[in-house]
């Protein structure tokens, strides 16, 4: 075998030229994929803003649809006033139910469960998270709506089932970020486990808990299948302030109804409603990020 010529010029030799081409192609591919994802999001936001912005006005945001949606006429059908209220109520009630359960599950998993028990519970959470929302909706439809009629509260229940695993997961992650040394220090002061959890671990992980909740709320606000099955037969022209007893009009439903009602003006309103929803989701996500960064800083300073 010929010995390597160490005194040759320091330009690529052997297969280095080929290896460098492969390197460049892979790096380019990865970069392109990342940029495509960003580009798709930007195009998506741009098109929604472009089409929806014209529909947005104070009256659009505060007025209800003027009459029951119909396929026939191209009449201006008012705005999304009651849908915003309905969505807010349904999601808020769902979150009120989901947050304590999700946080308790996370506490159980990180603070109290033995590894043998934590595994199956974690698996169950992952499976629950993976359940299609239409299946959750169908389950509650069969259980509650049949024989009783729809109610906004049933949609809240479905959304809370969607939120619980998400909240449990993000809360669990932020609880695990709380250093073991802090718990040790607290135990060494003669403070019981539960008091340590309530007084030290949860406050330390509070930012993470809020972040998880905000993300879960953002996700739930756009869920369509549950509200379609459980809270869709509302009178779209009236506003109701209670989730109990009757279905509530809501944003995903308005988007659906405006877009199938036909006519250019209704279609613009569908885009307008979509813009309202997407704005809420984006703002919630940015808020969650800011909170998350803040809580990390608090922990590490």
């Amino acid at each position, binding site marked *: 075998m010929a010995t390597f010529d160490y005194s040759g010029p320091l330009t690529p030799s052997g297969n280095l030229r080929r290896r460098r081409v492969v390197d460049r192609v892979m790096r380019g591919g990865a970069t392109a994929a990342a940029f495509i994802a960003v580009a798709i999001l930007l195009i998506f936001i741009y098109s929604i803003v472009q089409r929806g912005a014209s529909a947005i006005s104070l009256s659009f945001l505060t007025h209800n649809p003027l009459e029951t949606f119909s396929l026939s006429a191209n009449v201006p059908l008012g705005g999304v006033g009651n849908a915003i209220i309905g969505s807010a109520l349904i999601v808020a009630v769902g979150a009120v139910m989901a947050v304590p359960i999700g946080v308790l599950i996370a506490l159980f998993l990180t603070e109290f469960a033995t590894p043998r028990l934590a595994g199956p519970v974690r698996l169950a959470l992952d499976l629950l998270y993976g359940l299609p929302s239409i299946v959750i909706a169908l389950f509650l439809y069969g259980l509650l709506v049949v024989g009783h009629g729809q109610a906004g509260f049933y949609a809240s229940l479905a959304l809370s089932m969607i939120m619980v695993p998400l909240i449990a997961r993000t809360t669990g992650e932020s609880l695990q970020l709380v*250093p073991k*040394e*802090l718990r*040790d*220090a*607290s*135990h*060494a*002061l*003669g*403070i*019981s486990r539960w*008091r340590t959890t309530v*007084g*030290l671990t949860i*406050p*330390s992980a509070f930012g993470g808990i809020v972040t998880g909740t905000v993300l879960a709320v953002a996700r739930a606000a756009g869920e369509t299948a549950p509200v379609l099955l459980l809270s869709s037969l509302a009178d779209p022209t009236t506003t109701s302030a209670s989730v109990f007893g009757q279905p509530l009009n809501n944003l995903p439903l308005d988007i659906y109804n405006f877009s199938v009602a036909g006519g250019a003006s209704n279609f613009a309103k569908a885009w307008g409603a979509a813009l309202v929803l997407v704005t809420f989701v984006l703002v919630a996500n940015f808020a969650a990020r800011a909170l998350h960064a803040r809580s990390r800083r*608090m*922990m590490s*300073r």
Partner: protein
Amino acid sequence: MDESPADADAASQVASPLAINVHEATEEDPATLEVVFDLRDVDVYYGQSLAVAGVSIEIYKNHITAMIGPSGCGKSTIVRSLNRMNDSISGFRLTGQCNYHGNDLYASGVDPVEVRRRIGMVFQRPNPFPKSIYDNIAWAPRILGMRENLDERVEKALRGAALWDEVKDRLKTSALGLSGGQQQRLCIARSIAIEPDVLLLDEPCSALDPISTALIEDLMQELKRDYTLVIVTHNMQQAARVAERTAFFSLDVSEGRRTGVLVEYDDTARLFTRPADKRTEDYVTGRFG
């Protein structure tokens, strides 16, 4: 004790090359001292493996007792067993007598939370809570129902840990903004704020610079008037400087098993100058470890 010429030789070797400033001999009669911890034939297991074997030791009130030895020799394990901090480690099991003021720490019915309320602990890495300096101290007293004169209690604890003058103007700021040495003194202040009986210090200076270390060593001399102190240290000189009595642990390797054993426990001056065991002598003269 019989003093052979070889022993005298070893003693002179100890004094010169290491230049250890050994804590002056107390020459107290152990029989007259109040015993806080009385361990008899204590074995500690992690799962099936015997981690520390056959430890018998008496720890006296208002003394500083040092535990020295190479890594893995079980000195930390024994100290953490004294306030049941090992309970949370799965597979931990302790056999033998482990008495604290005559009560077996591992008897059924003993609540580890109650044990730790009396036997505090300071850890290797300073671990202040992500709260204000004031709340770091006041949190535990509040929970334990010592709400009266909380401000005074906080001040007393901070003075007791020689930290008051440095932090009195910023009690409401985050404890995480303090330096490492200040944080460790804050942890000591936090421990003494609930007026424990014993303070266990698990390598309290190993993450600190020499100046902070010296401060904490001075502080320990103050603290032993009110508390019984047990310190684990990697640093032989530190043990020699601060402790009345020193326990030397070593690692017994036989048949592939590594078990920590207590080799020698004696007055610090005697242990460093006239060790009874060859292994102790090798360790304190720097021949290994």
